[in-house]
């Protein structure tokens, strides 16, 4: 009887030991999941500095990954696991980093904003000679079939010659134009006289003749295409063109 009890006791102890053993072992190293040794998930991060540039400038793109075997950035291609690169895109770009490893894949993005450079006017605060020429020098208008400078155009001639004397480096062309009436050949001769007439008025005011070219367009290049006096007056002119 005593022997029988002992047998039961041993069985219980053994069972308990097995239970205990099993419980302890599970805590330290779980045997059932098979793949554990190098299987952490990859990590990835990407940044760009600065994140806003002007067109033409460059920015530094920096990325870091871990636990990844295959790292690529859209638009750049396969890259090292970590690194940095200088980029200079023409337009705003989102860099998309993909890191793939045994533990899965991870993505990260960085946005680089590219601004258009400010207009050159803003960049160069003082206007060029050409701008000044265009703003200041006024065309001279003529009466029908006339090439002499009429009284109401004298002020424009004086203003033009004053400006041109101040800017002695500017060379320019005076185009003689006519309205659509009359013959092609006669109007070309008339336009020539108008251009010469303006040139003569400027040289009389001290502008060097060497700076002035004249050309007649007759009625070949009208400014205004309607057949009425307002339009014809627009076309009867000595037109100033800046010579680069």
């Amino acid at each position, binding site marked *: 009887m005593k022997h029988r009890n002992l047998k039961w006791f041993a069985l219980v102890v053994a069972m308990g030991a097995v239970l205990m053993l099993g419980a302890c072992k599970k805590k330290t190293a779980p045997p059932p999941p098979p793949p554990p040794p190098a299987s952490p998930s990859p990590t990835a991060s990407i940044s760009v500095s600065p994140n806003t540039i002007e067109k033409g400038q460059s920015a530094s793109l920096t990325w870091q990954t871990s636990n990844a075997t295959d790292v690529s950035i859209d638009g750049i291609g396969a890259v090292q696991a970590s690194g940095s690169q200088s980029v200079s895109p023409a337009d705003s770009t989102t860099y998309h980093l993909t890191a793939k490893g045994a533990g899965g894949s991870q993505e990260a993005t960085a946005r680089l904003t590219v601004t258009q450079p400010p207009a050159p006017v803003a960049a160069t605060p003082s206007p060029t000679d050409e701008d000044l020429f265009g703003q200041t020098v006024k065309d001279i208008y003529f009466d029908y*079939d006339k090439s002499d400078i009429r009284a109401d155009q004298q002020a424009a001639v004086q203003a033009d010659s004053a400006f041109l004397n101040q800017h002695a480096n500017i060379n320019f062309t005076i185009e003689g134009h006519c309205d659509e009436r*009359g*013959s*092609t*050949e*006669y109007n*070309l*001769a*008339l336009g*020539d*006289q108008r251009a*010469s007439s303006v040139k003569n008025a400027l040289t009389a005011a001290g502008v060097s003749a060497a700076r002035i070219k004249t*050309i*007649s367009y007759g009625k*070949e290049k009208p400014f205004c295409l309607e057949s009425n006096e307002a339009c014809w007056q627009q076309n009867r002119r000595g037109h100033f063109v800046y010579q680069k």
Partner: protein
Amino acid sequence: MNQFDICVTAIGRAASLTRNMAGELVGLRESNLPMRTYRSTILSYGVFFFVLPQNSRRMDASDSQASGSRAPGLALAGTFITLLLLSVFVCSSFAQDWVRTGTSLGVQKVRLAVPDFKPSSADPQNAALLKTFNDTFWNDLDNSGVVELVSKSFYPLQVPGQPADVTFGLWNAPPPDAAMLAFGNLGAAAGKMTVQGWLFDVKNTASPQVLGKQYTDVVTDDAARLIAHRFADEIILRLGGGIPGIAESKIFFVSDRSGHKEIWAMDYDGSNQHQITHQGSISLSPRVSPDGSRLAFSSLTKTGWEIMLYSLDLNRLVSFPHLGGTNLSPSWSPDGTRLALASSRGGDSEIYICDASGANLHRMTANKGPDVSPTWNRKTGAQIAFVSGRTGLPQIYTMEADGTNQTRMTDQGYAVSPNWSPNGQFLTFAWVRKYGPGEPGSSDIYLMDIASKQWVQLTHDGGHNDFPTWSPDGRHIAFQSGRSGKEEIWEMLADGTKLHQLTFTGRNSQANWSWK
């Protein structure tokens, strides 16, 4: 009234090298056909030469319609139609009214029947060639102004293609009532086209043949057109008083259809329009040399308006010196050795004369105000007409070719673009006679007798008309007109009749008719 007899002699012509429509040299063989069954050498039909007393020719100036009274008639020959216009200069005081001038009163033109040429072979190309030939031939004769074509509706059903087929009674009596009959045949065979053509005086049944011609050329549409021009010219030469026809003449003009104003050329009837220059800027004022070998024009270059010279033989520009200033409106002397032109090289636009090479430049005028558009007396080469703005609005002037004796021809308005007639007697030009505020004058083509300064208006109520140019025979004037809504080249007889449009594509201007 003088009466001429025309001797029709069967002078054999050697085969001549000629230029076809495409500008290639081709051998067009041409020969006279024998007068087989007829033995006559003298043509008994007469050509009437009219020089009427001026005061007997007052046309009814009050006729304000485009008179339908083109009476039939045996025409004026031996001189220009325009000579007759002299007779109406007495009417110039009524010039605002429509005046129908010219050949239609009292003068009868030859009634010419022109049945379609017949095929002489079974070649399938014949139909298309005959269409081209017959259309061209009819138009040439119709445009000539020297004959009256009998309407085809009056013709008998059977028309002749050979002399043996002619039944005189069907032609010389009404309804056709023709004095002359032009007929023939055309056939393509073995790569050659042969055209036989005859001109018969159907009222003279004993010896009717006036002309018999045979032409052989390549089988092309252009060749058919060329042969039609040739044969029409032969007929016009005989019926028009010995003045050569113009069917082979060319008209040069400015067209913007390529996107730039360039110089173009066409046959006198508007066919075969093709581009000559490729300057890519603005090219104006084409003037062909008297021998047809060179074309002078004015073009905008980097250095301004320059006179350019283009060789029509070499198909390229040839050198011409830079003259300085604005250089416009070149004009050939009738012997082709000199050019008159307008240049502002001295400051003001003046008329200069130089050699055809550009050397020996001499100034002819010295006035304030533009002087442009010179034109030589085409008969003598001794005078030049031009436009001057020396008194304000432009007027027509004449001077001797050495610059002396400058004479104002027009008394008022805006007168430009003179062109001297081949016989030296007339100027045609564009004129806005009544010019000024409240005077909605239009620019029309006028004709002026130089000796008397009497003038007559040729165009009426048709928009802006400018740049008239005489045909080589002096019977026609081509000009630019805006009457169709945009600038196009038109042509008319020198009495203002038979107006028709030659160009239809783009804007076309500044026509210049070849000298022959």
